[in-house]
């Protein structure tokens, strides 16, 4: 007893300081591991994406060579006040290389107050395979899911494809999606690739272009290659009617209908195939404000999914979904937390010496981390023709410090909104206002 006082009594303060330093070390290491688990997962996915970029053409060839019958396809296009873009979309539908007797394009004019309905009607008169569905209250204004369900009711195809009203698919897109499903019975849905039509508009759209290419090759292609998984996006995908019938169409109450739909497809034992041969072109936000709103909505949707499934994991029939849920969990909590903590440690260490034990390796990690980002993005760009240009390369360097860092603020803001929503039970209100004030991401055409 007395002995102990010999050591500790005089050094109490120092002992406390030691604890603080130890704590700082601990936080730094934890955040580094969280960040790097994520970086390695991404690198792993990117490798899968690379292999898929080499491999998917085999599937493409298989489809092109089989001279079998075309399945009946119904394309659903929900449109709410889309007069600016809808005509171009309809024209691209007309250009599709698909037997028109096997094709129906159903444009759901969802409670539009502009000329959308008139334009659609005009084309519907002219082309027999184009149909117009005009929704009126009380069946109108229920968001995208509601519109899609209205379209589904009017459709007759065995395969249902969905396009946003601002999309211009390439002529072969539907052929790839439909024949893809026909040739792959285990696939419940077939997801195509989207490209940015207004990529060269300004720096923001250029950055979005780079981001979406990387996302698709890394996350979609990579996950498909390794896990036979992909997420159904809002557009340019085809799904078996049988599935939609069984699950009763789209869930009109769901916050993020895409993720929900994906999970339900998995639960039925199907997989979702990413097939980059089916290409559509879509418009991306050209101002930061619109971009911010759109991304906030996505982030909130993903946060909602984590909340919903994290604690009901045991109910999931297909455990594969856990990969995605833990991915979201990592992205939005752990990786985000890791970044915040390491930034915090960095700032505190500028003010007061924390005597971090990590040493020079931290610089090596910074450099390797940056190089990983750079090479992954460049690899993704090299998978598209004429995308790995000097200009884009410089943009990627710039992107790391700007566009990518905005993600931190985005997640912080989305988390704040979500916490607020849960605390004040604002669920329903949020969904509707958001849908009506900012109907999807499609009212900003060139």
């Amino acid at each position, binding site marked *: 007893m007395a002995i102990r006082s010999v050591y500790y009594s005089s050094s109490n303060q120092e002992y406390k300081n030691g604890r603080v330093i130890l704590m700082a070390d601990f936080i730094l290491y934890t955040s580094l591991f969280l960040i790097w688990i994520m970086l390695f997962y991404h690198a792993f996915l990117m*490798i899968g994406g690379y292999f898929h970029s080499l491999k998917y053409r085999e599937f493409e060839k298989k489809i092109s060579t089989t001279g079998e019958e075309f399945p009946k396809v119904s394309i659903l296009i929900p449109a709410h006040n889309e007069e600016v873009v809808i005509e171009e979309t309809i024209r691209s539908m007309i250009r599709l290389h698909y037997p028109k007797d096997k094709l129906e394009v159903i444009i759901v004019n969802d409670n539009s107050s502009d000329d959308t309905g008139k334009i659609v009607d005009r084309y519907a008169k002219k082309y027999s395979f184009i149909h117009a569905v005009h929704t009126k209250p009380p069946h109108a204004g229920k968001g995208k899911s509601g519109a899609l369900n209205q379209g589904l009711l009017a459709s007759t195809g065995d395969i249902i494809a969905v396009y946003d009203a601002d999309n211009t698919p390439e002529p072969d897109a539907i052929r790839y999606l439909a024949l893809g499903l026909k040739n792959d019975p285990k696939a419940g849905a077939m997801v195509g690739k989207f490209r940015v039509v207004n990529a060269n508009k300004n720096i923001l759209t250029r950055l979005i272009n780079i981001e979406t290419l990387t996302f698709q090759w890394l996350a979609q292609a990579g996950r498909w290659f390794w896990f036979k998984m992909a997420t159904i996006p809002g557009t340019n995908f085809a799904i078996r009617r049988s599935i939609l019938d069984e699950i009763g169409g789209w869930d009109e109450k769901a916050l993020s209908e895409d993720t929900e739909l994906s999970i339900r497809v998995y639960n039925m034992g199907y997989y979702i195939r990413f097939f980059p041969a089916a290409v559509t072109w879509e418009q991306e936000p050209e101002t930061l404000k619109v971009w911010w709103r759109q991304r906030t909505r996505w982030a909130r949707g993903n946060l909602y999914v984590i909340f919903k499934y994290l604690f009901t994991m045991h109910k999931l029939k297909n455990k594969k979904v856990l990969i995605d849920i833990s991915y979201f969990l990592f992205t939005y909590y752990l990786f985000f937390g890791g970044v915040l903590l390491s930034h915090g440690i960095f700032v505190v260490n500028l003010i007061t010496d924390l005597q971090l034990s990590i040493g020079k390796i931290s610089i090596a990690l910074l450099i390797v981390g940056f190089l990983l980002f750079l090479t992954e993005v460049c690899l993704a760009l*090299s998978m598209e023709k004429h995308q790995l240009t000097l200009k884009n390369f410089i943009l990627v360097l710039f992107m790391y410090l700007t566009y990518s860092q905005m993600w931190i603020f985005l997640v912080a803001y989305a988390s704040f909104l979500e916490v607020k929503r849960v605390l004040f039970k604002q669920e329903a209100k949020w969904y509707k206002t958001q849908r009506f004030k900012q109907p999807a991401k499609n009212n900003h055409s060139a």
Partner: protein
Amino acid sequence: MNNSKTTKRKCLAAAFIITLLFSIFLSTPQSIAEVKEEQAKIVVVYTSKENEINEYQRQLDMLLGHFSKDITFISSAEVEKKDLENATHLIYYGQKKSRLPETFPALLEEYTGPFLAIGYNTEQLGAHFDFIQSHGEIAIDQLYFTNDPNTLLNASYGKAIKVNIKGNTEILVEATKGYEDSIEPILVKNQNHYYFAIDDIALNETIFLGEILHTLFETGERSSSRPAYLRLEDVHPLVDPVPLQEIAEILKGKNIPYMIAVIPVYTSPQTGEKHYFSDSPALLKVLKQMQKDGASIVLHGYTHQYRSSETGEGFEFWDVENNLPVYASSDEEFNLKEKSEFKTAEEYEKYMDGLKQFEREYIQTKLTRGIQELVNYGLHPLAFEAPHYTMSQNGYQVVSDYFSTYVGQVQLSDEDWRTMDGTPYISTPSFLNGMELLPETLGFIEEDNPNSLKDIQSKSERIQMTENGIAAAFYHPYLGSEGLYDVLNEMERIPHLEWIDLKQRDISVQADNVSIYTINGEVIADVKNGALLMTSWDFSMYHIKGFLKTAIWGMAILGGVAVWLFVVFTIHLQTRSTKMEG
């Protein structure tokens, strides 16, 4: 023919191997010597101030420890017949002139073995020392062996007892006596009786006495080799690893096994901040490499300080301010109470026991922690050296529970830390409670002291007066390699030098959850790792941090590989698309 030849050869080879094995097992000089040592049972009857053992008896103890582990010290006031019964060698040390008990001569009557008397009162030893007649104290200057007048050494206290010899008595050591130009007999021999005419003895005296004792103990032919060691001193967590490594490489190149006196904690004198080896990974790496290359680790205290003073400068196991053993915690004012302040002797004893208990626990805590901490780093201490060589007798008892080997010089009295001395030979004195003492005899290079090399030289000459006294020096590695070369040159000049390798000795180190010992030159560390890690959060942290560091490097390397992979993939895709377009 051929067959018989090969058989013959085989037989010869077998015989050779068997002989070799036998010689290894049975006839190493050490084992023979040990057998002899076991046999000698030395009884020292002493007469001193208040009949208590003091630094002079312990000086003798250190010398005798070279010849036997079985040494008993008995005060002439208490000695009984049975104490002498099994004695093979009897020594009377009359350090103070005194009236011995009447019964004393009768006790010695039957004894016929080798008998050494030192100092006063020889006339009261019956007829044993009739061949000398003492005439009181005289001043002397220098001692030398009668058969080699060049072997001059100063008498430590400049005094001796004037004796006249009679009959067939041989003078082995003499002393010069200043301006009087006379010569005095100091060490004389008559059959198996020896007399040494100096009462207060120190290192110089034991040089002469020790050489003669080899005859008294009949140690037989002595090996021509001279044991030696070099110790790198005060290696604490803030020592610069660069010169240390340089020194390590020099010593490795010369194939010299050496010791490193390691202090696990450095306390900054300004801030009081503590530094550990875990904070100095580069240094730790060098130390581990040194250990791997054959160096032996010596625990040189835990912090090398008690009150707030710089590590390496301070005392850890002695309260210098009060010139007392460590009887209270460093932040307490301590005043030792006098015996007269107590009503009864029991109360005083109880008080002193309490203080000693404090000291015991203090040392136990530090040694346990020191050993465990080093072991946790993968450094295996094989011996102990007290900071500044200072420690109480009680302290050495505690150390002997942990270590089998003590390195350096020894504090000989609890009255004053300055009563510190060495001894010429490797020894197991009784007051070290079984520990083997590897004495330091040559000193060290002192910064800013131009004479320090000369000091080493003269000490080296002194130790060379002995047949196989140990030549041992220490060196502070922060002084760089140049000074080391000075010391090494000085030492390597000594003929028949044989560097001590602690690993080759019989070593055992014990602490909670740690047991270190040597078998055939190999260090075996028997560590209960799980339990050791549980004893301190710091121990686990060291390994966790090590693991994290490795993991982080692994991450960086793996990340690098991924980057390389992506570059290759990108180039592949680019060349392919160029081909397709072309």
